[in-house]
C-alpha cells in the first residue's frame, strides 16, 4: 500500500507529518477510494489533525485492522487511531483513549422492505451475518436469540453482499458501520438499519498509553468540532444518505479526557 511507505519509528508524528490509523474497508467510516479516504472516522481524524497543526498531505493514513491496533500504537507506528475503536478496560491496559467522538450501538441491517425483523429478539430462526470472532454475533446468540443461524466472514462487505442477494436475513454490528454500507450508492434504497441499538459502543481515539497531553489536545479538538457544527455536517455527509438517524440522547458525546 502506497502510504505505508511512511512507516518507521518516527512516522507516528512530531515531524512535519502525522500518521493516523483508520480502517480502509468500511464505507461511511473509513474507506479507501483509490488515493482518497472517506468516512466519518476520516472526517474526525482530519479535523483533529488540523487542530494539532497538520493539514492536507501532512496527514498520512495507515490501515489498521482490528488485530493490529494495539501494536501500531505501542510501537509508535501511528500517532492516533480512528478505527471504530470501542473504549474498554482490557484495551485501556495497553493504550490510552481520547474521545469518545461517537457513541454507537449494536444494531441490525436488513432489506429495506423487511418488516418482521424489529430487534435482536426477532432473529430466532433467521440467518444473521457478522464478522468472524467478533463479539456482536455472540452477543445476540447468547442474550437475545438462541435459535439464530450465524454466518461469519472476515469482512462486512461479504455479509452485505449476502444480504443484498437475500441469502441472509440480517447483518449485525455497530449501527454506524451498518449505516455506512446502507449509504453506499450501489445499495441505495435497498437496505435499512433497524434503528434499535441494544448495546453502547463508545468510539475512542487510540493513542500512546499515558500521553495525557496529546489526549487533552485531541479532546479539545473533538469538543470544538462538535460545538462548531462540523461534527454534525460530517455525520450528514458520510452516513446520512442511508437515512440513519443518530441517537440524540447520547450523541454527540462529551469527550471525557483520559477515559
Amino acid at each position, binding site marked *: *500500500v*502506497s502510504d*505505508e511507505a511512511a*512507516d*518507521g519509528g518516527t512516522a507516528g508524528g512530531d515531524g512535519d507529518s502525522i500518521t493516523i490509523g483508520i480502517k*480502509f*474497508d*468500511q*464505507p461511511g467510516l473509513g*474507506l*479507501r*477510494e*483509490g*488515493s482518497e479516504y472517506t468516512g466519518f472516522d476520516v472526517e474526525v481524524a482530519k479535523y483533529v489533525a488540523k487542530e494539532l497543526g497538520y493539514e492536507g498531505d501532512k496527514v498520512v493514513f*495507515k*490501515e*489498521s*485492522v482490528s*488485530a*493490529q491496533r494495539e*501494536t*501500531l500504537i*505501542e*510501537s509508535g*507506528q501511528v500517532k492516533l487511531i480512528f478505527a471504530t475503536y470501542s473504549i474498554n478496560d482490557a484495551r485501556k491496559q495497553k493504550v490510552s483513549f481520547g474521545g469518545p467522538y461517537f457513541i454507537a450501538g449494536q444494531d441490525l441491517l436488513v432489506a429495506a422492505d423487511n418488516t418482521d425483523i424489529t430487534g435482536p429478539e426477532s432473529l430466532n430462526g433467521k440467518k444473521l451475518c457478522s464478522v468472524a470472532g467478533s463479539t456482536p454475533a455472540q452477543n445476540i446468540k447468547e442474550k437475545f436469540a438462541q435459535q439464530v443461524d450465524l454466518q461469519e466472514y*472476515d*469482512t462486512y*462487505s*461479504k455479509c452485505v*453482499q449476502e444480504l443484498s442477494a437475500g441469502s441472509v436475513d440480517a447483518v449485525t454490528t455497530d449501527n454506524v458501520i451498518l449505516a455506512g454500507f446502507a449509504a*453506499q*450508492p*450501489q*445499495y441505495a434504497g435497498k437496505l435499512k438499519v433497524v434503528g434499535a441499538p441494544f448495546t453502547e459502543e463508545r468510539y475512542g481515539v487510540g493513542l500512546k498509553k499515558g500521553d495525557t497531553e496529546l489526549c487533552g489536545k485531541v479532546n479539545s479538538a473533538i469538543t470544538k468540532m462538535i460545538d462548531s457544527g462540523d461534527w454534525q455536517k460530517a455525520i450528514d455527509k458520510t452516513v446520512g444518505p442511508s437515512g440513519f438517524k443518530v441517537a440524540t440522547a447520547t450523541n454527540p458525546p462529551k469527550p471525557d479526557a483520559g477515559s
Partner: protein
Amino acid sequence: MNQQASVLFDAPGPRAQKVHLIITIIGWVLLIAAVAGVLWGLRDELTPAKLLPFADPMAWTGYLLPGLGATLAAAATSVVTAIILGVLLGCGRLSGIKIIRIVCGLFVEFFRAVPVLLMMVFSWYFFIFVLRVPSAWQSFAGVVVGLTFYNGSVIAELIRSGVHSLPKGQSEAGLAVGLTPSQVLTSIQLPQAITAMLPSLVSQLVVILKDTALGSLIVYSDVLKQATELSTWKGNLIATFIVVALIFIVVNYALTSFAQWLERRLRARGARPRPATAPPTAPGLPTV
C-alpha cells in the same frame, strides 16, 4: 500430451475420426451451454455498472497492480528463502551423519503435515504478539514464513528424490574415478538432480504464488485483499473475484508454460539423436 496419448490407442481411422467429430460437436455444445447458463445466472453481477470500475485506471493503479506487486514480492521472497531452506534440508537428509538426517527428516515431515494457512496464522500472531515487529512487516513476514517452511520442506523432498532417481551408475562412476562421496554429491548428483527437478521446482513456484492468496486472511495487502477492498468500494464482489481469478490464471499459466519450455529445452540437450535405440540397461548381445 500426444506422445502419451499414443500409448493407449491406435491412430484413428476414418470412422473413428467421424465419431470424434460428433463427440467434439456435442462437447462444445454442452460446454457453451454450461458457460452460458452460469453467465446468465450471474447476469446481475456482471452488469456494466459492476464491470465499468475496471475501466477506471484507479482500479488498477490503486488496487490490483499494487496488490499483484505485493503478491509477487511475497512469492519471490518465499521462493528464494524456500530454495535456500530446501537445499539445506535436502542435503541434510542426504547427509552421511545419522543425527542430521533424522533431525532434517522430522522437520520436513512436520511442515509437510501442517497446513500452510495454519503456519501463516501462527507466525503472523507470533510476529504481532511475541516479536512485535512493525505492522508493515507482520503480514509479509507471516506469509513468507508460512510459505517458506512448507515449500522448503517440499523442495527438500524434491532434491532428495531427484538425487535418488538418478541412475546409480552416475554416482558409482564418480566414485570409480576417485571422487569422494561429498564430491560426488556436489559435482555429479546435485547438478543433475537440480536440472531434473527444475520443472517441478517451477511448478512449485505456481503453488507458492497461489498460496500467497491465503495472505489476505492475515491482512497481507496481496492482490486478493486489494481486490476485496476495491469491491467494498465499488460493491462488485463477484466481478472483482472473476477478474482476480483471471489474473492468477494468466500469471500462473505463463509460469507453467515457462516450466514446460524449460523442460523441453533441458530435454532437448539430453535428447538422443535416435530415440528408438534400446535403453542403455537392455543388453543387446551379439554373439558368434
